[in-house]
């Protein structure tokens, strides 16, 4: 199978997913903003949780997919996984950046500061910079084979760092509230949360599929044998 076709088996699927994602996000945000009651302690500010928590889940999911793609690429040398890893890192970086922004917007009225050295916050920031570094590495290496292998190795190393960063910062300092489970959260709160979680999941999957297709097309171009002199002149 050629490089480009490998990430283009369902051409319409990403667009369907993007559409579904927008619908889910619209319904979820409507319920979250207008239907669900304000939370007792934090009031209206808490409504940002309906996008913040789904963003966090999906950011981690995208990075995990990048890690899995890196492993599969290193073991199989199948180029479509390189394109998938690149796509997942890019989408993951965008989500992690959004996560930091949303967190700051929430933290200022709640904790009184824009930033705090809490384990999850710090881990997200470290992850964001680690994956930005990998994207920079990809920009600086022209040879596609080296670029793919090196960034896969760097992705595995960076991903292995996540739990270590998390626990080290947790020992160091902690302020973030503990996670809630569906059992302790009223239905009015978790419905918009789940709608938005699926909305962002669909959007993320759609974007990763589209970006992987672009990556595959570029790889096809880069890996193609140089045209023969006769074809160039003709």
């Amino acid at each position, binding site marked *: 199978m050629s490089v480009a076709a490998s990430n283009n088996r369902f051409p319409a699927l990403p667009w369907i997913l993007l559409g579904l994602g927008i619908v889910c996000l619209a319904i979820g945000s409507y319920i979250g903003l207008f239907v669900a009651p304000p939370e007792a302690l934090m009031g209206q500010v808490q409504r940002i949780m309906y996008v913040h928590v789904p963003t966090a889940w999906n950011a981690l999911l995208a990075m995990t997919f990048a890690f899995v793609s890196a492993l599969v690429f290193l073991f199989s040398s199948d180029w479509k996984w390189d394109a998938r890893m690149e796509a997942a890192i890019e989408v993951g970086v965008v989500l992690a950046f959004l996560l930091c922004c949303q967190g700051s917007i929430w933290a200022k009225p709640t904790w009184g500061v824009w930033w705090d050295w809490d384990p999850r916050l710090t881990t997200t920031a470290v992850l964001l910079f680690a994956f930005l570094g990998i994207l920079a590495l990809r920009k*600086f290496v022209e040879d596609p084979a080296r670029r793919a292998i090196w960034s896969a190795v760097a992705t595995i190393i960076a991903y292995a*760092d996540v739990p*270590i960063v998390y626990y080290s910062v947790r020992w160091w300092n902690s302020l973030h509230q503990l996670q809630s489970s569906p059992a302790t959260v009223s239905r009015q709160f978790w419905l918009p949360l789940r709608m938005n979680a699926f909305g962002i999941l669909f959007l993320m999957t759609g974007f990763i599929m589209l970006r992987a297709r672009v990556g595959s097309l570029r790889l096809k171009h880069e890996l193609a044998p140089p045209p023969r002199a006769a074809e160039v002149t003709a």
Partner: protein
Amino acid sequence: MAIFVFGAAALLLFSFAVGPDAEALRKFSAGFLWLGLLLSSTLTLAESFHAEMENRAMEGLLLLPASPRALYYGKAIANWLQLVFLGVALVPVMVVLYDAGTTRILELILVIALGAAGLSAPGTLYAAMTAQVRSKQTLLPLLLFPLIVPALLASVKATSLIILGDPMNQGKSWLVLLFAFDAIYWSLCGLLFHKVVEE
């Protein structure tokens, strides 16, 4: 030697950032020591594959009947020793500038050895990559700095507890964390190195 002067100059500059507040300087001395060492390490690490890049010496090394893993551990241990010497040499500078003396010299050396191991394991792997690309001076810190956050945190905490006293006996848990970080990255990077250098 030049790198020692660089590290010492960095330590001198940090004290200007805080101002002549002896108490604050002493309090932050461990952080300054490790930041100085980290900044110097990007220079030593970037240099570590310099010779191999000339006349395609790297390919020659890989043709030898030795595994790339041996090559990696050789390089990593060399980098580690360099950083340990540098770290130990920077301690007197720290003591003089920040009045951060301690009698627990052996423990301090242990922390420097473990922390330097944490810097050199991923640092050597990334140096092998970045030595082969343009603008390596930017790329190496960009990749290395986020990764070594836990090692830096644990080293600074452990050093700080040695200098300022450790009433709660927390030093040990930071050493365990540092050791775990070293164990993970010395094995993981050794496993992945051959992928980086082999074509």
